[in-house]
């Protein structure tokens, strides 16, 4: 069975084509989902892609979080559907209450596009099971509001529950924590491990022709394997 991965488009979504391409590279069928339509079309997993939904004018992801399709995603996520929010998608998942914390203006106050080194902190989620704990990967990041914040108590709880999925690492020019994210957090998940949000863009690191490498592809193959069973995926 070919895995069917839904890719949501809100007005202002930008990386939906890229997310769909990554799903295809991983052997899945990419199924377009429209913000105004609550029907998830029976997909096996959902990608909430990057971009500037509704211009991010109020707060990044805030208006999109109220869309009909998100009502369905919230319900399905509770039932275990794999959901990955990338960049703006991460912001949408936080605004929708699927993930704790919030994403705020970068400490440098600028949009920042660069290739970013990350460490896998939790390879136990459905989206990161293709990596080893502690593995380092290089994928692009590009955002203006990527600074993960939460209250100290909340952060302690997030850490205690093992919800930190990736952290920013590296030192020297252009590496390390890019935006003042608290505790260097780049990605978090829910306790069940089916919902993950991350600021950098694994879908832009699936082909060395158009990205800094192929380190991001494993996120998509992992979920395809989880859906199709261990031998199901064929690229």
């Amino acid at each position: 069975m070919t895995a069917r991965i839904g890719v949501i488009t809100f007005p202002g979504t930008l990386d939906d084509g890229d997310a769909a391409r990554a799903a295809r590279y991983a052997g899945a069928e990419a199924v377009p989902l429209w913000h105004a339509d609550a029907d998830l079309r029976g997909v096996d997993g959902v990608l909430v892609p990057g971009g500037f939904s509704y211009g991010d004018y109020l707060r990044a992801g805030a208006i999109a979080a109220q869309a009909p399709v998100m009502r369905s995603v919230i319900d399905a996520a509770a039932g275990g559907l794999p959901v990955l929010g990338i960049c703006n998608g991460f912001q949408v998942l936080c605004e929708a209450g699927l993930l704790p914390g919030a994403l705020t203006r970068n400490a440098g106050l600028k949009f920042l596009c660069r290739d970013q080194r990350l460490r896998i902190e939790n390879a136990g989620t459905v989206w990161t099971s293709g990596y080893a704990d502690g593995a380092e990967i290089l994928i692009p990041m590009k955002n203006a509001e990527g600074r993960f914040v939460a209250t100290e108590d909340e952060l302690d709880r997030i850490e205690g529950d093992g919800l930190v999925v990736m952290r920013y690492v590296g030192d020297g020019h252009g590496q390390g924590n890019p935006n003042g994210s608290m505790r260097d957090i780049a990605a978090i998940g829910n306790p069940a491990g089916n919902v993950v949000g991350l600021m950098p863009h694994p879908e832009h690191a699936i082909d060395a022709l158009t990205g800094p490498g192929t380190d991001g592809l494993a996120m998509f193959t992992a979920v395809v394997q989880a859906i199709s069973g261990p031998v199901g995926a064929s690229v």
Partner: protein
Amino acid sequence: MSTAQQAAVDTVARAASTPDQPQPFRELGLKDDEYQRIREILGRRPTDAELAMYSIMWSEHCSYKSSKVHLAYFGETTTDEMRSKMLAGIGENAGVVDIGDGWAVTFKVESHNHPSYVEPYQGAATGVGGIVRDILAMGARPVAVLDQLRFGPADAADSQRVVPGVVAGVAGYGDCLGLPNIGGEVEFDASYAGNPLVNAGSIGVLRSADMYTAHASGVGNKVILYGSATGLDGIGGVSVLASDSFAGDETGAGRKKLPSVQVGDPFAEKVLIECTLEVFAADLVVGIQDLGGAGLSCATSELASAGDGGMLVDLDQVPRRATGMTPAEVLSSESQERMCAVVEPAKVDAFLAVCAKWEVPAAVIGEVTDSGRLVITSGGEVVVDVPPRTVAHEGPVYHRPVQRPEAQDALQANTSASLPRPSVDELGGLITTMIGSPNLCSRDWVTNQYDRYVRGNTVLAQPADAGMLRIADDSVRGLAMATDSNPRFTALDPYAGAQLSLAEAYRNVAMTGAVPLAVTDCLNFGSPEDPGVMWQFSQAVRGIADGCRQLGIPVTGGNVSFYNQTGTTAILPTPVLGVLGVIDDVRRRVPAGVGGAGDVLVLLGETRDELDGSEWARVVHDHLGGMPPQVDLAAERRLAEVVAAAADVGLLTAAHDLSGGGLAQALVEMCVIGARGASVALPAGLDPFVALYSESAARAVVTVPADRIDELLALCADREQPAVRLGTVDADQRHGVPELAIEGVTTLSVADLRTAWQATLPALFG
């Protein structure tokens, strides 16, 4: 609307019956004879609305009245062979070229200089928005943006306001639109202090059969205005019509101070793009025009005059976000993110349904007629009744005086020969100083604010000689584009300087392995009323046109920006040249960073003692004088062909052209980008300083795997391409770190070079 306002609307009937009513045409920028011509065309005085339309459309910006007679030379020098790949050329919203396999590319660069000084963020943002709509109006999906920025001295106080604002504006709009930024320029020079240049470019891709043009054909077809609502923004000068005696009420007087700044809404433009591409795909459109500088005045008159010649428009149908707007204001509003489409009646509902899906406001505002007149009503009365061609295409044409400035001889005589040159011992320090200077340092403080990955087709972007895109997911065909201008060389000799700018963009495209195909330009100059500026302009146009003919690539479009001056001091003449290239297989692209360990570095081209107008003269001596480097377009062509041929057979692991800062700059950049060291010996028989800092054109450094060096040298010999071995990319690190070692001159650590190169702009701008 109050009765007082209604009474104030100036109708055609009223104009006919009040022929002697004084009109503020001078305040609107029209000359006495231009106003007389309008009266002759109409056989009466114009209404307020007509006066507004003519004054905007006959402005320098819209009518090209000072440049037209010179730009005609582009047409005269374009041969049929050059034209063979051109699907649309000068006169359309943007040029379109056929790139094979049924694909076409449209590309253009435009200026948004003056608004960006007043409000840097919004000026730059709306500049990006405007050029992207031009590309969209050709039927293309916009796929990339580029930006060419010129500012006053980097350390000037006002640069703290202008530079971060402009860069954030380009970023804010382009990033939110989801278009990768794949290239551009940043330059600092005192001449731009009160008049920064913000040029923005965009590229679009389409199937060649799907091209659209701006024309209103098919009597009875509907005219639909869609996108953002129309407001009072950007109507600057026209508000004079609403003032004092002319509109006769107090609200009018209050509006005199309307700022001519617009706020961009990139989200609205993003949905406008998707909506427009969807109506194209469903074949719902006959003709289309974006709304840019002159708003509805431009869109209606251009659509009508390029079609069946007549159009009827009802301004009451125009969606608005301000109350009490006069017809003149509605017609001249520069509200952003709007488009105008001509649609067959049977397809109107389908068109509006697509707009509704994207939540884009849309309204049928009129229809195509065969009356030969553009008739516009408001409140049921006719406020405009004109032959549309007289508005859109038959504006005034000036033959402005052209005079080589008297100071030109003295400028050229003041060569760099008398400037003290560094000793060999000083060259190591000079390299570090030069790479950290504002005009040679890394641009990543700027380019890191731009998304270069979105859409997933970016094959090359900063730092690269040219940006490169795969044209579609399922294709390996690609396009490349670079833009360049050398204002200093252009000041020394406008004809040669413009050609050197063209040659640099051409060379940059060629370095990536792409084949240069077509050209666009954005000509930024001072006041056309200054005969010296007009001389620079006419020389530059001739240089570009003659140069394009020699290179065999046509100019497909462009933009002219005059009046770039502070007080009476003009900017350096700044012709920005954009060259588009194609590559059959993007997997054979050539990057700029040095290739693998052990690869051989080769210098291609001839180095002469050419330092007038160079970066060295600027950085070390703050000097500008003499003659620019020799132009040799045959040599440029040969170099491009050699690189393309070598890339084609996979010989090259890197290529980087030599331009500002010469060989020294190129070697540093190649090592830093490639994160490797190199051991180099400067060519024998050349003074080391000249070898490192001359800016002779038609040169490049390439790297080749050691086992294929003979192949490359043979290829060069075949084509009589001068080539000399410079050295090798280091396999072992001498002192445990990568180093750039220049024999007999200096050894510098690549990490230190990187720091010196990258620290400058962050230190200045945070």
